[in-house]
């Protein structure tokens, strides 16, 4: 019977962390606790930021630039307006430094007069008033006087480089010399909007000590905390950040919330009252971060047997106007750019530059979906050229135990590329289906309305195709990231005998509030309902790092387990070995509170050199395959993704329902990326910055998603878990595009594979999209 968290009662988390896949009942929470905050969300009782009431609070809005690049000469207030009813804040009102603290100090909270506007919709002035009607009326009465400057919109022409890396292994020339086939390709992916359904929202409340309390929607309370301290000139106590119920993040609430929290704070400090800043959807899409667009160029050498001998890969990412997290996004993208394949001779070159478009930032996958799309496209095209099945080509090249990656990392354990590949191939009956769909495609060839095309023949209005992709995803932060973060997570037995987990790990739908108590309950041998999860409030919890990079269960969860073990040992030792669950309440009465703060210790044997980019880029990798089946309308080229089989190795499944939920949701975001999600820009401005025009998949667009979870545990984490959130995002898009090729015979090199792009490709026009300059050269014919 499922555990109920709604009704008080005792339900032992009877299963250990090891889950036998055979015992799972698909779709049910059998034996696992239900989502802890689920009842509140299902009854409407859960309070998201915009649901909170602060009596006397004012509303705040942002006046933004309308140019992509300009010098700000003056801010002019309409003299005919009575401005006494509003609070106006400009850069001059910022108490501390005019910097949104992130990797580089390049982004201001507000553009100062005399400064440079660097993107459309950049914040310049803030307004607050008691009611929204006043703001609506006065918003247009503030004029920004500017002198236009020529914007830079092409990341390849930008001279401002945010980051540049090169990774080399082996001898590229030697590798290509030994190749029987050399294939080049260029792939382009555009912006993608995270599109959490809850828009960014922050409420700033001035505190009595001259400080500020932030209530908001966010992934990383301590990022916001750090930004507040710097821009408001406050100490760690004066700045306090409380995460409220958060309606989705997907990376979009990793770094951007700092901007909005600072804006609300500047207004609140000047107005001396609480200020609410709740974005509307249009503003949220217009002004907040997106997934980085990328151009990825491959030159691949293979033997006639399909063995990779050389990979020369160039990645260019468009950072937008400010650095945000771009260097780290590029780094992860580049380190994943070769795909999960062994290759002795590799060169990876990556560059991210500044353009005058809104800043790009974190989004699930963090650079890897861009580069792995390109890697998988390239593999599929190699397979086609060699006449080898896409599954077989991967089988011959996928990393195995003890293989070495381009950074020189030896994969010592937890390598499940083969397993996820074989499971996907078997579950989808891939070879059999592909034989049928290829046969159907051959029959259509030449019989359609376009000579030699693959348009419909006779009564066949639609064509079906199947496609496969494989991916890897580095677990936790890249390189030395976790060492620098030095996270701390805590487990506490309070003086009144309660058990609490304290971390900065936020719940945004993925299940932190459910799995952390579950893991601790399992360690302590107590019912899961006895374990509380402390609020994500910087006044209560220590900095366990950001809730990003699929690191929560793996890294912070690992700390929580170690803390629980220490707590158990301490209490049992004090009580003559009596079991924890029998002794902890008496122990608290006798000894008061016991709190274990567990600090991150580097994973054993994991070293990375940030200067040379050599070593263990990640402690371990997660592995994933996806097999997609699509139906393409041969008249309109509309694509229906019918089915995706998603196989994901997460190390250890902590909670099967929540884990499947991550895979299903990530898979659909990838399907959207592949088929429909596209930001269109003109002069650096997003044109489709509304939900009516930026489309994400509905229930009617979503395929059946079948999840197969694989467990190849990582020994460095006490539970073996490697993370799950981002893995599915890396793999489904190339699988869908491969399936479109299987149905139509054309490769779509630029995402998304819209009907327009497919139609153009089927008519033999530009290879799959505007801007694509695809070359498939065979320097040497395959033998």
């Amino acid at each position: 019977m499922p555990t109920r968290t709604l009704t008080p009662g005792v339900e032992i988390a009877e299963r250990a962390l090891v889950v036998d896949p055979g015992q799972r009942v698909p779709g049910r929470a059998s034996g696992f606790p239900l989502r802890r905050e689920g009842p509140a969300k299902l009854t409407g009782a859960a309070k998201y930021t915009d649901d909170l009431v602060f009596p006397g609070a004012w509303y705040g809005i942002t006046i933004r630039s309308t140019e992509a690049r300009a010098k700000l000469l003056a801010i002019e207030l309409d003299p005919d307006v009575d401005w006494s009813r509003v609070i106006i804040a400009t850069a001059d009102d910022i108490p501390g430094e005019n910097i949104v603290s992130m990797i580089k100090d390049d982004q201001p909270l507000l553009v100062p007069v005399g400064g440079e506007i660097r993107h459309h919709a950049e914040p310049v002035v803030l307004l607050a008033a008691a009611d929204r009607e006043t703001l609506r009326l006065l918003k247009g009465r503030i004029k920004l006087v500017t002198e236009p400057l020529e914007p830079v919109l092409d990341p390849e022409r930008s001279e401002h480089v945010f980051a540049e890396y090169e990774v080399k292994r082996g001898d590229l020339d030697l590798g290509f010399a030994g190749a029987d086939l050399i294939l080049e390709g260029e792939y382009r992916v555009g912006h993608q909007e995270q599109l959490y359904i809850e828009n960014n929202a922050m409420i700033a409340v001035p505190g009595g000590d001259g400080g500020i309390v932030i209530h908001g929607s966010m992934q990383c309370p301590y990022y916001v905390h750090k930004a507040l301290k710097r821009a408001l000139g406050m100490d760690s106590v004066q700045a306090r950040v409380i995460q409220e119920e958060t309606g989705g993040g997907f990376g979009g609430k990793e770094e951007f919330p700092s901007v909005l929290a600072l804006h609300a704070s500047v207004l609140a400090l000047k107005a001396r009252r609480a200020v609410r800043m709740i974005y509307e959807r249009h503003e949220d899409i217009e002004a907040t971060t997106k997934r980085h667009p990328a151009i990825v160029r491959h030159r691949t050498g293979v033997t006639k047997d399909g063995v990779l001998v050389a990979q020369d890969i160039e990645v260019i990412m468009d950072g937008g106007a400010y650095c945000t997290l771009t260097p780290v996004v590029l780094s992860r993208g580049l380190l994943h750019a070769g795909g999960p394949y062994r290759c002795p001779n590799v060169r990876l070159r990556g560059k991210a530059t500044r353009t005058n478009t809104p800043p790009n930032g974190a989004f699930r996958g963090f650079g890897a979906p861009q580069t792995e799309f390109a890697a998988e496209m390239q593999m599929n095209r190699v397979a086609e050229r060699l006449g080898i099945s896409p599954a077989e080509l991967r089988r011959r090249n996928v990393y195995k135990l003890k293989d070495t990656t381009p950074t020189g990392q030896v994969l010592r354990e937890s390598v499940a590329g083969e397993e996820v590949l074989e499971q996907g191939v078997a579950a989808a009956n891939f070879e059999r289906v592909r034989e049928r769909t290829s046969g159907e495609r051959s029959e259509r060839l030449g019989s359609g309305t376009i000579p030699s095309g693959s348009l419909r023949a006779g009564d066949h209005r639609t064509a079906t195709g199947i496609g496969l992709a494989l991916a890897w995803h580095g677990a936790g932060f890249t390189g030395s990231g976790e060492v620098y973060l030095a996270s701390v997570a805590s487990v506490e037995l309070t003086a009144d005998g309660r058990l609490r987990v304290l971390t900065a790990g936020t719940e945004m739908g993925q299940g932190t509030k459910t799995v952390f108590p579950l893991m601790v309950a399992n360690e302590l041998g107590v019912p899961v309902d006895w374990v509380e999860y402390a609020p994500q409030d910087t006044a209560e919890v220590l900095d366990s790092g950001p809730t990003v990079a699929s690191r929560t269960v793996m890294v912070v969860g690992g700390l929580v387990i170690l803390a629980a073990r220490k707590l158990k040992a301490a209490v049992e030792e004090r009580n003559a070995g009596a079991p924890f669950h029998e002794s902890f309440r008496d122990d608290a009465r006798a000894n008061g509170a016991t709190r274990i703060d567990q600090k991150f210790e580097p994973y054993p044997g994991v070293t990375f050199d940030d200067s040379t980019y050599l070593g263990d880029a990640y402690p371990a990798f997660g592995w994933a395959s996806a097999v997609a089946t699509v139906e393409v309308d041969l008249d309109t080229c509309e694509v229906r993704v019918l089915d995706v089989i998603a196989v994901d190795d997460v190390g250890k499944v902590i909670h099967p329902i929540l884990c499947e939920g991550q895979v299903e949701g990530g898979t659909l975001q990838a399907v959207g990326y592949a088929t429909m999600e596209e930001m269109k820009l003109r002069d650096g401005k997003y044109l489709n910055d509304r939900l009516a025009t930026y489309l994400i998949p509905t229930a009617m667009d979503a395929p059946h998603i079948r999840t197969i979870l694989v467990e190849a545990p990582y020994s460095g984490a006490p539970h073996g878990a490697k993370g799950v959130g981002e893995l599915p995002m890396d793999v489904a898009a190339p699988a869908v595009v491969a399936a479109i090729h299987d149905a139509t015979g054309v490769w779509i090199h630029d995402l998304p594979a819209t009907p327009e792009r497919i139609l153009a490709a089927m008519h033999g026009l530009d290879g799959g999209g505007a801007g694509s300059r695809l070359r498939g050269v065979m320097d040497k014919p395959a033998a």
Partner: protein
Amino acid sequence: MSAYRFLVNGAPAEVEAPGMRRLLDVLREDLGLTGTKEGCGEGECGACSVLLDGQVVDACLVPVCQVEGRIVRTVEGLSLAARERGSLDSLQEAFLEHGAAQCGICTPGMLMAARAYLDAGGGPDEEPIREAIAGNLCRCTGYTKIVDAIAAVATPLD
């Protein structure tokens, strides 16, 4: 400003408001029923779905003047009887057990769309369920578990 009277979750409500004030704002701000969420404010996402005389509507597109004398049902009224017993109704229970709610921001609207489908006699087949919730965007789940949860309630257990 005029006075508008209607029923919300079985209880009479009277609000003084401009006739064009959005039902969404009336519910959230005037009546304190914040379970209904705003996602886009232009009828695209369905986060603000409520039932008006049993039909699903986007509360962001309905002016309060159109609600006079009618019956509004929100997520807070989904399980009035069940809530008195401190528990969820069968649909909410199914969402919880199947993992159909993740971040939860689309959930109230999704539940209302599902309720309307079930009340109209909708069955457990997948296609009509997907059609019934096609106006409600979810970015977390991939919809699989939402469809499963609705189907489970539509299926008589014995």
